[in-house]
């Protein structure tokens, strides 16, 4: 093979617009990490390593034909369930929650695996029963979603549980769950709020109130929200300039390389920077929707739609929490926050999107 052939082989199954959007977000990530690390190379370099590893996995997935992808659904879901049960029984407690499983060599957080595993399993299930979809199938699919979610709620990891529920819900929605059922569930959920509220213990209510009113917990999690809001607000229209964020560099911002990295960005690049960042996100999300619309099979449509919508949700929830309109639930800013696991999970999703886009020509005959 010539060099050119090799190059072509390399990019055949990569979606170039998507690659451009992801690449821009990664660039932002490295740039902001350098600032958040007080002009240090430690975090950016190790994030670069995360990117390389995750990118390799994305490339492999993108090159995987769709029927292989479908075949992984049941094993991945089953493995995820086994690991989640393992966590419930033997998990390690850290920061008050049992989320990690120590496998001797590595510790893993099975709920991350389920971020991919659940939509995959549900889309697979709908594809299998595509010809004869009845309400019963939606019910079974909901169960497939709720079992792992219940285990994650128990850990307790409410943030992840809500987001995973969202990704499963998107599959149900796109699979055509009737409006009447959706409406019914919505009304029932609303109606049950006061009942559930009255069943909670006082301390549980207090915790929920604290989520929505951070000033009540100024020494704990509320501190993060207060400082992050100041950072965002003080950024103004043009921002304080790269490496000049005072909140960041005087150590007022907590977790500024991970969940609160958006505050660093927003303080230094201002509203203008925010618009650019949102633009990039919308570009990636838009491309995801186009891939979804063009997807050739029921399975790939559901999968692509869920991946795209989940990505959008993550971005919204993180920015919402940093800017003080959503409770602090420990969600990273996708592709920008420091962290290997979330980088890997996200790029696996994008690998699937790319596979869906680049293999459809072969499926369609």
């Amino acid at each position, binding site marked *: 093979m010539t060099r050119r052939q090799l190059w072509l082989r390399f990019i055949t199954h990569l979606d170039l617009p998507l690659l451009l959007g992801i690449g821009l977000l990664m660039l932002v990530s490295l740039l902001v990490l350098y600032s958040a690390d007080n002009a240090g190379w430690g975090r950016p370099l190790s994030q670069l390593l995360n990117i390389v590893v995750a990118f390799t996995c994305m490339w492999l997935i993108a090159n995987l034909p769709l029927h292989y992808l479908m075949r992984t659904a049941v094993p991945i879901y089953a493995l995820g369930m086994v690991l989640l049960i393992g966590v419930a029984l033997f998990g390690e*407690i*850290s*920061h*008050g929650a049992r989320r990690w499983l120590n496998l001797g060599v590595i510790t893993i957080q099975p709920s991350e695996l389920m971020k991919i595993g659940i939509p995959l399993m549900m889309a697979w299930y709908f594809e299998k029963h595509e010809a004869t979809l009845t309400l019963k199938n939606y019910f079974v699919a909901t169960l497939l979603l709720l079992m792992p979610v219940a285990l994650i709620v128990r850990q307790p990891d409410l943030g992840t549980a809500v987001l995973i529920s969202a990704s499963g819900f*998107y599959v149900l*929605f*796109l699979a*055509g769950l009737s409006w009447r059922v959706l409406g019914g569930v919505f009304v029932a959920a609303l109606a049950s709020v006061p009942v559930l509220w009255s069943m909670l213990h006082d301390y549980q209510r207090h915790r929920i109130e604290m989520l929505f009113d951070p000033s009540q*917990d*100024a*020494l*704990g999690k509320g*501190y993060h929200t*207060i*400082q992050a*809001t*100041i*950072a*965002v*607000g*003080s*950024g*103004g*229209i043009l921002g304080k300039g790269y490496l000049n964020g*005072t*909140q960041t560099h*005087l*150590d*007022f911002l907590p977790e500024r390389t991970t969940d609160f990295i958006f505050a660093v960005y*927003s*303080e230094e690049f*201002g*509203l203008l920077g*925010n*618009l650019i960042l*949102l633009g990039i996100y*919308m570009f990636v*999300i838009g491309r995801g*929707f186009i891939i*979804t*619309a063009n997807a050739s099979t*029921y399975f790939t*449509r559901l999968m692509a*739609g869920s991946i795209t*919508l989940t990505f*959008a*949700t993550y971005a*919204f929830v993180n*920015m*919402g929490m940093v*800017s*003080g*309109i959503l409770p602090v639930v420990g969600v990273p800013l996708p592709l920008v926050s420091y962290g290997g696991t979330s980088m890997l999970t996200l790029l696996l999703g994008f690998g699937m999107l790319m596979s869906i886009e680049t293999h459809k020509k072969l499926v369609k005959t």
Partner: protein
Amino acid sequence: MNKHVELKNHQREIFYFRLRLAISIGFVLVLLSVLLVRFFYLQVVRHSYYQTLAESNRISIVPIVPNRGMILDRNGVVLAHNYSGYTLEITPNKTADLEDTINELATLVEITHKDRKRFNKLLAERRNFETLMIRNRLTDEEVARFAAQQYRFPGVEIKARLFRNYPYGAKTAHLIGYIGRINQTDVEQLEENDLAANYRGSDYIGKTGLEQSYESELHGTTGVEQVEVDSGGRAVRMLSRTPPSSGNTLVLSIDAKLQEIAEQSFGNYRGALVAIDPNNGEVLAFVSKPGYDPSLFIDGIDTQNWDELNNSPDTPLNNRALRGQYPPGSTVKPFMALAGLYYNTRSPGHTIGDPGYFNLPGSGHQYRDWKKGGHGSVDMFKSIVVSCDTYYYGLANELGIDNIYNFLSRFGFGKKTGLDLEGETSGLLPSQEWKMRRYQQKWYAGDTVSVGIGQGYNLVTPMQLAYTTATLANNGVAYKPHLVREVRSSRSNENRLIESKPEFDLQIAPAHLDLVKRAMVAVNQPGGTAAGAAAGAPYRIAGKTGTAQVIAMKQGEKYDASKIDERHRDHAWFIAFAPAEQPRIALVVLAENGGHGGGTAAPIARKVMDYYLLGKVPQPLPDTADKEGEEHD
């Protein structure tokens, strides 16, 4: 035709899917606009407000550590309190060269190697703009010397801080425990219990004893101050303040003077003493000898002291009263007698002839009485008074282990008493099932025989034996033992009394109680095993001596204290309550390697009861000589 329908369906499906997709896109656009509105609000509308907060001044949230609650005895005598002292502290951010600064400081005040090590440890764990202690407990002279030179040391200051103090030191160490610096394990524990926010700024946490068990009461609620700081981190103006509320004060049922007398009555013996008011379960004295100096642990104990405490053959860190497990020896006999009466195995008048040993039917093995040649004819009353082993070998054999287990476990043997102090051990009341589980062996009749005199597999803690003694004193009505009598709130002056409620009533027949108690009184009268220690007491004592074997004697070998290494000598027990008719105090004394209960343990009990019932202070405070009593057990 068929194909046509399918195709149409497919197209319809695609149409519906794209409709849903369009709705999803609409949903994403709504989210997007929510963010845009929020950013516009924060970064344009409210920009100047946040600009002010961030640029000219910065809000710093400063935790205000609450004062730790005090611990008082029942009469208000202070057992743990805080005093303010001066510390020398450094803010690393404001100090150019730490090493230089510390070397310079060392010329003014003494800074030891240990101080430097602690400082470096603090430095590694520090939070932002925190001041770190380099020296604590400065003398007035050192304060003055530094104050005169302070201008040379930017970023170094004298601070007044509260220190914990335990006026009774080693005498209450096993009871009060101590606080120590919060370490990684504590942090994890706090995070797990969602308490980390309330410990922001706190340096200390209860590590053992009541300091640990009542941590949630003692710590208090951390306050918070929002202050504006300038770019250097110096506080400029206070914005808001939520004051801390001090920890609650614990009022114990312990009588400090009684505790002190009990502690000193041990002289050079190691051991434990627990005294309880049988009418309500209040613990009056709780001694484990030897103690240790709790203040050594507060700021981290140094290696030398630690090795000394940890490797001492006297094991001063072992809480004998709460965690020490010993065979009860003959102190179990009154309880065995009650079991015999309860199951009708023995009538009060039933008399045995004691030849000085007991044989199981068909076995040549001799279970020997402590008295060579035996006690002659013995009924139940006499069996307690002279502590006849032969009587109880036979009784136990006839009762059988199941009945013994059932009866004694109802009293509380083999179980934790539920004292409000963490780390209690449960002792051991053996059963057939237990032996099978533990040794995979069936229970033998010989095992039962040894249990009858409190040897064999039996183990009790001094706390547990005190609890069962108090229950016996109170005619079978048990009160849950507790050390804390009252929690005085710092906030509302609302004081919570710890209620004393009866736990259970064993419903022992009055005639049975009467017999056993009369016999226990006779133990302390001429002819009884503790007659010497009780001589001249103006009140009547009911008691029982005991001896716990440390090493087993071979068949035919004679115990001779003088020939045995001191640490292998028997442990001496004495359980008692007084006045016998209307008990106000029930207690247990264990003197390790003390030999005979009557000779060593009972005199200690006598001094404690004399003080509690008569207010009589031993003069001079006793210096118990290591003398062997004549009485045997």
